[in-house]
């Protein structure tokens, strides 16, 4: 699996934001989560699937997520991750700050191009 420098690095917090956003819509297990992020981002954001797990554990510890038993797409029993109210609150905060940041970056880029 070749990682090109163009999209290798995620900025800090990006992975967390994507996990929160994804799980907000529906609780998922690790594999589904990884697949989802990959498809949605059109393979632009490629992450080593394993690197999800330390992030998931961090978020479990902070209390944004909790894990419970569920079923996979293949109807196997799996552990699914679910947002807690604290996680939802965090998502809102993060999203607005990211949007502000993106808007800022976008403007700067627009000025630079013209």
């Amino acid at each position: 699996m070749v990682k090109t420098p163009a999209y290798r690095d995620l900025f800090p917090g990006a992975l967390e934001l994507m996990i929160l956003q994804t799980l907000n819509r529906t609780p998922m297990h690790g594999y589904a989560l990884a697949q989802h992020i990959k498809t949605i981002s059109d393979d632009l954001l490629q992450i080593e699937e394993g690197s999800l797990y330390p992030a998931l554990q961090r978020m479990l510890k902070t209390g944004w997520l909790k894990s419970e038993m569920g079923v996979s797409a293949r109807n196997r029993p799996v552990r699914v991750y679910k947002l807690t109210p604290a996680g939802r609150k965090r998502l809102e905060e993060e999203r607005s700050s990211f949007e502000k940041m993106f808007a800022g970056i976008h403007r700067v880029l627009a000025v630079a191009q013209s």
Partner: protein
Amino acid sequence: MPWLRQLFTRHRRYDELSESMREHLEEKIADLIDTGMTPEQAERSARIEFGNPALIAERSREVWQWPTAETLWADTKFAARQMRKSPGFTITCLLTLAIGIGANTAVFSTINTILLHPLPYRDSGRLVLVSESLPLLNGDNLVGVSAKEFLDYQQQNTVFSDVAAFETDEFNLTGIGQAQRVNAARISATTLPLLGVDPELGRNFTAEEDRHGSDHVVLLSHALWEGQFGRDPWIMGKTIHLDETAYTVIGVMPSSFRFPLDGVPPSERASLWLPMAFAPNLLKPENRTMEFGVGLVARLKPQVTAKQAQIEMNQIASRFMRDNGYSGTIRVVPHVFPFAAHTVQGARSLLILLAAAVFCVLLIASANIANLLLARASARTHEMALRLAIGANRPRLVRQCLVESALLGLLGSIAGIMLAIILIAGLRRFGPASLPRLQDVSVDPLVLLFAVALSMITSLFFGFAPAWRLSRVPPQAALRTAKQANGDRGSLRLQNSVAAAQIAIAFVLLIAGGLLLRSFTRLVDSPFGFNPQNAFVVRTVFDLVRYPDPLKRDVVQKQLLDNLSRLPGIDVVAEASHLPLSDSRQIGFRLEHAAADDFHMAENSLVSWGYFRAMGTALVAGRDFTRGDRRDTPPVAIINQALSRKYFAGRDPIGKHFDWGDRGTFTIVGVAADMHISSLDSDPPPMIYFDMFQIQSGASGKTAFILRGEGAGPELLPAIRREVWSVDSELPLYDAATLRSLISESLAQRSFTLLLLGAFAAIAVLLAAVGIFGVISYLVAQRSREFGVRIALGANRSQITHLVLARGAWIAIAGCACGLALSLMASRLLLTSLYQTSRYDPVMLCLVPLLLFAVVLLASWIPARRAAKLDPVDALRIE
């Protein structure tokens, strides 16, 4: 307490985590199979995309941990397990560290206390001692100052804030049980304030009490107060009797107080202090140049150096010498010494020697640790490569190596500290009494820190080796097979040089020990000048107060000589005021026809007839003293061969005359063989014997009975006591000893040095042997495949043995060559301790390399045998 809950629910979390990851992979593989991959392809592809599960699990778990503390704990547990797994390595390392740290701490603590630690006085760095020598009379020997000179120094100096006089003395303490001999010091009233010490009870002398006639007051030592007076709180004002004279107790000194502090054993320390109170006799003008022996201690004024004080003392001395007609051979030279340095002068060379020796041991111990760790590192290359391959990163490996070394160092340090405590206890118990302040030695925290730090640095530094090596060996290469991993010739070279260095240091220590041993045997074999066999000595005192009349005293002494000679198993009994190797005094004499001020010094002893027979000393010419020599016959003297050689070279001294001060003219009637007086390793000095029944004895009236015969020994002491006390029950009997024990006491410091240096040399050789063994064993392990091939191809097994032994021999040759060069430089340290032995002693320079060769070959022999016994099939089998 969320963190506490986390701590307990952690293991459930970990289980869930690995479950999740397993589920993840399973789902992914199932998906990939659906896309048409074979299960093998699917699994491979899934694992590649997922990453290293072990590493991810570890990083995920870290979220729940205190990462540093917990990995440290895990590493420590792992290290402990590693140590248990190889007990041989562990025990060798720990013993090496313990010896290195323990011996070093013990010796350096001793040095620290004796050489570097301030004396137990206030601001003792400012204290100096002033003493004079009479260079024209007796060379560099210090004689103190005379009372008149003391007063001059005291009154005319501008460099001292205070000056005090002291003098040692002895008394019969009577009135409490059996009469006993006590050591005392006369000190001027200024002494205690100058030293900054106060009595524990009572008060110091007043200036009034420091005057002759009103000086019958005394300060007791804590030990005497405790032992003889049962810590009587009402002791002040009570009266004790010293030499039949009443003294009033005015105080008790603290138990830490020792003065004068001149390295005497506890039994000879002063236990009483009296006012100096110069006797009028001492202050007579003519005694200015006759009666020296007063100690002068002074405190330098702030900003004044000892050098400035020396200059001023020189000026004062030249002034009083000019004004008071010092002439002929009477020329005094004042010397100013820092008090502390002077106190430990005799011990300095011994301690520096020991420090050097023990530092060598520490070097060897460090080298051993280094070699052991290096050898082990090579053996573990495979293990490390494996860990690297399954996902450990380099910092992680380095950390683990460091933890292992640190644990080793820590345990070694603990063992070392325990050893140091034991060694210091032994040193205090068995060390020579001539080492000043030996009883104050204790484990010094600073020194301990130094030794522990040094061994920690060593073990940490060489603990890096496995990780460091890995950074140069690609894991694939190291992993291929352990036995093929032959890529570290560099470390083998390093190990060889470390082993050679160990041999070199052991060489130096062996040479030093050997030279001292040869000096010692030469010394013991040299003629003492007397026969130490079958002779017993016991001392007593006829003090002037009890025996003011010399004739009455003569009668008692002669009666005692007769009574004692009738004891069973005794052939001859004699008396002497001074005995060789225990005490001495010097007198000034003037040969007949010499100028009036042409004085010379000689050792002196007042003896009875039969003294030379009792000592087993030959009279080489003339006659012994007889009962016919009395106070009313012309005074006679016996001289020794040294004096005869020096002043009567080639002429017959019998019948010649000399003057001794105002005591008259003496005729030489005999020449006795030389005896060693102050020590066995200095040449016998010129000596004059007088007949104790012919002249007034020294003021103290001390005398020693010498009994010679088959029955002479400590078991005779009760009979001696009975005989003496039947004549005068108030006579104290003390210092009973055989002549043989006088010799062993005078050799105590030498035999102690020899013992310690011998022990250090033995340890060094042992450690070096362990080091060689380690290196050669490692070499055999490394080359076992090669040896296997050689044997398979038909090499003779003895050829293999020779191959291995040759490696040991090369190390020995290199080590001995360096050792030779080093010891030629280092043996200068020994010069003062050698007796009739060259520092290039050929016997030692031959024996030591031979011994080391034998040790090296022996240490190489076991691995060499192992190499020769290799089964080629085993050796060639990979893994």
